[in-house]
Structure formats: structure tokens, C-alpha cells
């Protein structure tokens, strides 16, 4: 009973907040609704017993991706009226993309029902028997059967990260603003200050 109630609660909230994402007038509100949608998705994951995925969803999407999203949206001065002006122009394109996504979904479900896809590689790396906890089960599968796919994903992310850094990094030309922290820490009062006792009526020469 509790599960059914929780499922409908999460599902209704998720769909409602997803609708609010595209209908909210303020882009910041949109992002906040999106976060609520992520959160409810995590709740649904917990209900199907995938608590590890649920926690990762919250940590990665809500905790990191959506924060950056919110960050960018807040900084941008988005004019909603100007954005709506191009609605009719982009409408056919939007419909086309929606149709492609629908077709892909149907294809995907059809392929899934036709039988599981075998993405395994080496013969010796058969998936071990199901271990008790969800986390251990994912680990056992990910690091044995799907190890190559996992490593390829890691390499793609690494390349993307290096690419992003290379694209955005601009070495500063001027020396100003560059600090040597070690030098700052090593400084002590003896070399930074001078004690002088000037006579009355005379200035200090440094």
C-alpha cells in the first residue's frame, strides 16, 4: 500500500514538475522545477530497488549538474519575450525532433522485447552470481563483464575534460595577479618589517 502510494506520489509530482519546467515563465523557476523532477526520479529509483542509482542521480544531477545549470541561468539575463518570438519558426523543427525521439523509443522498446543485447567482450569475464547488495551487484557487473565499455566511458570523459580545460584556459600574459603561495607562507616578520626608532622631529628613511 505504501509503495503504491509512494509510486503515484513520485510519478505525479515528476510529471507535474516536468510540465512546469517547460511552462514556467522564469528560467530560474524552470531549473528549480527540473531539480524537483530529478528528485522524484530518484524516488522512483528507490522504489524499484535501485538505491545506488538513486543516490548517484541525486549526487551527480541534483548536486552538481543542476547547480551549474542554475548558476548559468541566474547569470544570463534571459528575455523570455524575445525567446517566445521565434516559437513559430522553430515549431516544425521541434516537432521533427519529438517524432524522432518517439520513433527511437518505440524502436528501443521493440529491440528490448526481442531479447537482451550482448555487449560483453572477453569470454572469461562472465557476470558473477548476484550478490546481496545493489552496490556490490553493480560493481561486480561493471568491473567484470562491462569493463571495456566502462573504461572507454572513462577515457571519453577524460578527453572531454581535458578538451574543456584546453578550450577555456587562457594563460595570463601579465605578471600581475600571479602569486607564489609558498613564498607568501615562508615570509616571516623579520624580513617583512623593519624596526626604527626615529628621533623627535626627524622622519624615517627606509
Amino acid at each position: 500500500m505504501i509503495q503504491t502510494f509512494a509510486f503515484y506520489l513520485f510519478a505525479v509530482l515528476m510529471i507535474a514538475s516536468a510540465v512546469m519546467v517547460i511552462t514556467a515563465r522564469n528560467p530560474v523557476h524552470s531549473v528549480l522545477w527540473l531539480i524537483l523532477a530529478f528528485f522524484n526520479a530518484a524516488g522512483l529509483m528507490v522504489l524499484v530497488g535501485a538505491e545506488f542509482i538513486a543516490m548517484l542521480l541525486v549526487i551527480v544531477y541534483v548536486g552538481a549538474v543542476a547547480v551549474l545549470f542554475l548558476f548559468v541561468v541566474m547569470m544570463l539575463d534571459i528575455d523570455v519575450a524575445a525567446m517566445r518570438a521565434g516559437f513559430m519558426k522553430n515549431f516544425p523543427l521541434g516537432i521533427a525532433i519529438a517524432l524522432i525521439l518517439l520513433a527511437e523509443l518505440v524502436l528501443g522498446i521493440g529491440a528490448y522485447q526481442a531479447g537482451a543485447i550482448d555487449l560483453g567482450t572477453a569470454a572469461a569475464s562472465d557476470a558473477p552470481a548476484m550478490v546481496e547488495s545493489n552496490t556490490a551487484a553493480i560493481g561486480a557487473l561493471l568491473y567484470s563483464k562491462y569493463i571495456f565499455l566502462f573504461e572507454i566511458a572513462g577515457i571519453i570523459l577524460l578527453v572531454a575534460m581535458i578538451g574543456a580545460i584546453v578550450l577555456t584556459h587562457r594563460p595570463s600574459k601579465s605578471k600581475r595577479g600571479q602569486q607564489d603561495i609558498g613564498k607568501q607562507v615562508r615570509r616571516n616578520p623579520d624580513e617583512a618589517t623593519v624596526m626604527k626608532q626615529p628621533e623627535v622631529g626627524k622622519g624615517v628613511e627606509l
Partner: protein
Amino acid sequence: MTEFFQSLGMSYEWAWGLATLAGILLIALPLMLAVAMIIYVDRKVWAAINLRRGPNVVGPFGLLQSFADGLKVFLQETIIPSAANKGIFILAPIVTFTVALAAWAVIPFDAGMVLADINVGLLYILAISSLSVYGVIMAGWASNSKYPFFSAMRASAQMISYEVSIGFILVCVVLYAGTFNLSEIVMAQEGHGFGIVNGYVFNLLLFPMWVMFFISCLAETQRVPFDLTEAESELVAGYQTEYSSMSFALFWLGEYANILLMCMLNAILFFGGWLPPLNIDLIPWFDIPGIVWLLLKTFFFFFMFSWVMATVPRYRYDQLMRLGWKVFLPISLLFVVLISGYLMATGHYG
């Protein structure tokens, strides 16, 4: 507790619901009391280090100071700036407070004394603590004022930076314990140091991790020396500038509940949680209930937090970012490799 309610003749679902509700109240109410007292302790320690008296007027030794402050704040008028984004402005302190309380669900206070004994407990804590930044960002943006907005930007950058290194530090602990369940992590620390001492901190590989975890906790909870989000010399009062009355108090409560949580995590992850410090039954260590040990350890860490607040000057923002990304992140990454290599070499997993 579910069994107790079931013995009163209730169905399992009702008994479970009532037991959970009772558990929530049993955690949340003492927590609020603890927050009030810990604010008093904070001010007292700070005052003692500054050679002042601190709060000493309301009640014996000023013990009721926090309650007087609470009453004062409660009676104030709630002011919402006319240019503020009203809904989010009101929602922000509620989010902060709720998130600060939600994390306590998985904290084990003693063997078996935990509201939700889930096997991804540590990940849950990480997920919830990554949510706490939203209260600050929403407050800063909704206030529609420049200082709160600066503070919100600082807060989000700061919390994301330190969460990365905290994540890696937690990975080191999890590598040793072999589980994400907080109770099992505590049990794994029994007799960890040569069979005599309980706690991962006495491990040479994990001790540097604890030092970094402690500093990261300071940054994560925005305590001095990393309190750049509310640096009064630069940003008035940061994201709280436009808040008054109970909305301000909710921020305050949430912040201190988070600090207490971090202190407790220090105790649970590195100092053996509810276990006594020594694993020898010479003195009647084991007769003292586990929760007393846990609270004592937590209090010790809170004392250290106050101590740091009274003695260390505030970091500059670029120094803060440098510490997070250029010092803590590489070192914690190195230790993940070191520790997993060491555990593999010594056959930790059998």
C-alpha cells in the same frame, strides 16, 4: 520500535508508520535542543579564547541565551523585500532547514539505534549535503540584491569544490570498511589499530585523510576560516542579508544542524562512532552506553570547530579555491590509489 507498536495490536503498516514518526521526533526534537545549546557553547568557547565572558545574563551561566534569542527572533516581523522573488525567498530557508534535518535519518547513534539502516547510508549523506547548497543559492538569487547574490555564487563554487575531495576521502574509508552502511563502517573500526584502538584515524594511511576531512568539513559548512559566504567585511551578512525573523532563524538552525552532522560524521567515520576509544576491557569502558561515547566525540569535534573559529583568520577566496582544487583534490586522489593498492597487496578482501 515497530514490534512494540505491533504488540499493541496494530497492523504492520500502521506500526511501521508510527514507529518511523516516533523515530523522527526522537531525533529532531533533541537535535533542536542540541543546536540551541551548541550555539551557546560556540559563543562561550569563542569568548573564553578572546578573554571575554560570553553570554552570562539569561539563566544560570547564560544557559538560556539561545532560547531568549529564539524568542526574540520569533516575535520579529517577517520582512519580504518588495523586489524579491517571493515564493523562492520563502522557500529558501525551508529548504536549508529540511535538508539539514533529513541527513540525520541514517546516523547510527548506537548499535541498532538508527532510523533508516539503509546500505547506501554514506551516499545518502553525500547526496543530502550536496542539496544544502540550494538553500543558499535560492536565498541569494531570490533576495534580488547584490551582496546576497555574490554570496550565493561563492557558496555554490565553494561547496562543489570541497564536495569532490570529501567524496574521495569517503571512498578511502569505504575501501577499508567495504560497505556504505554507516553502522557497518563503525563496526569495521573495532580494534582497527593493532586490535587495541577503535577508529580509522589511528591508521597511518587514513590519518591524513581525517585531517583533510576535518578541513573540508569546515569549508563545507562554511565555518571560519572558510566563511566567505557571509564574510561581514565584504558581503554584509551574505545570503542572509535580506532575511529577518523566523526565516533567518531557520538558516541559523540549519547551519548549526549541519555543523553538528559534520562533527558526528568525523566521529563515525574516523573515530569509531559509538565504540569506546580502546578495545580493552580494563576499565569499565564498555558499561558506558555507546551513545554517550558518540556524543562525547561529537562534542570534542564541535569544540575543535569553535576553537578554529576563534583562532584562524579568514581565507581569501582564491586561496580557498586553490586549497580545494590544487591541494586536497590531488592528495585525496593519490590516497585513493595508495589505499586501494595497499589493500589489494595485503589481501584485505581475502
